[in-house]
């Protein structure tokens, strides 16, 4: 089966004068429809840049990004194939939600990219109500402003905004890294449920190994702009081959280390 998304030899070089910085080099992986693919790495590894090159926020300087077999980039021009087909959820809902917009306007904003008829259909009051309750908020929340919500609630708003256009593919860039553990659990559960209900495909970007292990089917480990290891989550966690992956796994301060009795948990 053809992959939904395929990256081949993707690179991103930032240049200033005679200096150049290779943020991403020769990155290749593919994501099948319905899969959750994890991208893990430390700060500066280039994982977020990849998310941006897939969603059209940064143009690659090398390689090809294919979505359903069609190239997403012609030089620095992003070919918007089907508007709303792809969405992104960012780490910090504090900065990714406009503080002066009401929740209803925030959630409906991605519809601006759609043709008028589709916009009316997808932006109907019933759909908005159904979506806001589906992500665990209430209808009366639609009239409020972002500052009236907790971090977890704000991330639910960001998720609703991503889903309003009925995307097939969602990039999740550290979606729970700013949240408390108990709140993170709610958001991860919600993301899993939504994926099943809507046949979504996720690219899950995170620095958190435990979250990647829990959420993803396959994963790639990034270091300094390059992929050092790709494989199924089960394989990589059981027997990491690359030295850097091994270091990452052994650095993880985890309850595994102390062999917690799970029967009490």
């Amino acid at each position, binding site marked *: 089966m053809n992959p939904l998304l395929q990256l081949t030899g993707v690179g991103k070089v930032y240049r200033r004068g005679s200096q150049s910085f290779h943020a991403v080099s020769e990155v290749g992986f593919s994501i099948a429809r319905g899969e959750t693919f994890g991208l893990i790495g430390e700060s500066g590894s280039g994982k977020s840049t990849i998310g941006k090159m897939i969603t059209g926020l940064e143009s690659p300087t090398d390689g090809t990004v294919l979505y359903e077999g069609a190239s997403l980039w012609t030089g620095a021009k992003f070919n918007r194939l089907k508007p709303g087909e792809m969405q992104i959820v960012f780490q910090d809902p504090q900065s990714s939600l406009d503080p002066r917009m009401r929740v209803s306007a925030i959630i409906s904003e991605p519809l601006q990219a759609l043709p008028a008829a589709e916009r009316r259909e997808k932006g109907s009051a019933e759909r908005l109500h159904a979506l806001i309750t589906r992500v665990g908020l209430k209808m009366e929340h639609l009239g409020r402003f972002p500052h009236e919500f907790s971090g977890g609630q704000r991330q639910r708003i960001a998720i609703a905004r991503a889903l309003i256009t009925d995307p097939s593919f969602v990039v999740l860039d550290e979606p729970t890294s700013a949240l408390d*553990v*108990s709140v993170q659990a709610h958001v991860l559960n919600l993301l899993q449920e939504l994926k099943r209900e809507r046949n979504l495909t996720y690219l899950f970007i995170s620095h958190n190994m*435990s979250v990647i292990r*829990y*959420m993803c089917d396959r994963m790639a480990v990034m270091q300094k702009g390059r992929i050092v290891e790709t494989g199924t989550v089960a394989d990589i966690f059981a027997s990491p081959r690359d030295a850097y992956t091994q270091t990452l796994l052994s650095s993880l301060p985890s*309850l595994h*280390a102390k062999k917690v009795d799970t029967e*009490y948990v």
Partner: protein
Amino acid sequence: MLLEIKELTVEFSSMHDRIRALKNVSLSIAKGEIVGVVGESGSGKSVTALTILGLLEKNATIPAGSITYKGRNILALDKKELQALRGKEIGMVFQEPMTALHPTMRIGDQLAEVIHRHRKISYREAYQQAVVSLAEVQINDPELVARKFPFELSGGMRQRVVIALAMSAPPDLLIADEPTTALDVTIQHEILKLMQELSAKRGTSIMLITHDLGVVAQVCQRVVVMYAGEVVETGTTEEVLRQPKHPYTQALIGALPDLAEPDQPLSAIPGETPDLRNRPCGCVFASRCAHSLPVCLEEPPVLEQALLEASSHQVACWRRDM
């Protein structure tokens, strides 16, 4: 005990409200011990640290409780005595190293200034000492780093400098509030190891405030679990993480993706943290608890021994026999 907090209550008042941020918090730290204080946002873990350091905002009041450090009541100290205590006796490390460092002063000078002040030695000697202390936090080429400015260093290097700064006096107690939260896991691993080594080598006690149970498991001997401004459970790390007795501790461990089966939903805690302006009259966790009884809604449980055989393990729960 080096530090002993007894039934500490802290309130913040604004124009309209009074928020009880801490209620009857008791905890102690022995010499050389690393104690983890763990909790989520709003649990009161940072307020506890700020109270010890005498760094609470002006709108804070302490209606009850005591903090005894080496037999002295810290809450009775005046500004000058507190200043002498901070830095010299009690060091601190916060989450964001950049906020603790002077942005336009070279690393060596920043360290030398503190050492010069606390140890009453000449500036020249203090500078030499500064280079030594950089080497002690395992910075390669300390002479070179001493001549650099904070912005020239990575986050992990900056946090090493802050630890060197905090340890320079050297203090008997180090309060570290989320010291590795802004760092990558591999760097976090090194910083935690470094803190452990410094503690073992010099007998420094560490109060490690964190939201991360994994960090507690890695470095702490004892742990204090806080929820909504109260201590709900305390014991050795082994006791609390292996056999958590408080439903909140159990739920917190259950919410971690670390041990979860990928195809099973995570056991998320229902509801939200209580409004600290109107604390519930019973147990602070009762409204979210799967095991609550009528008594839980009416009377607050006190921190008591969880099991007959282990006196170190204490829990504030009406159903501790569970």
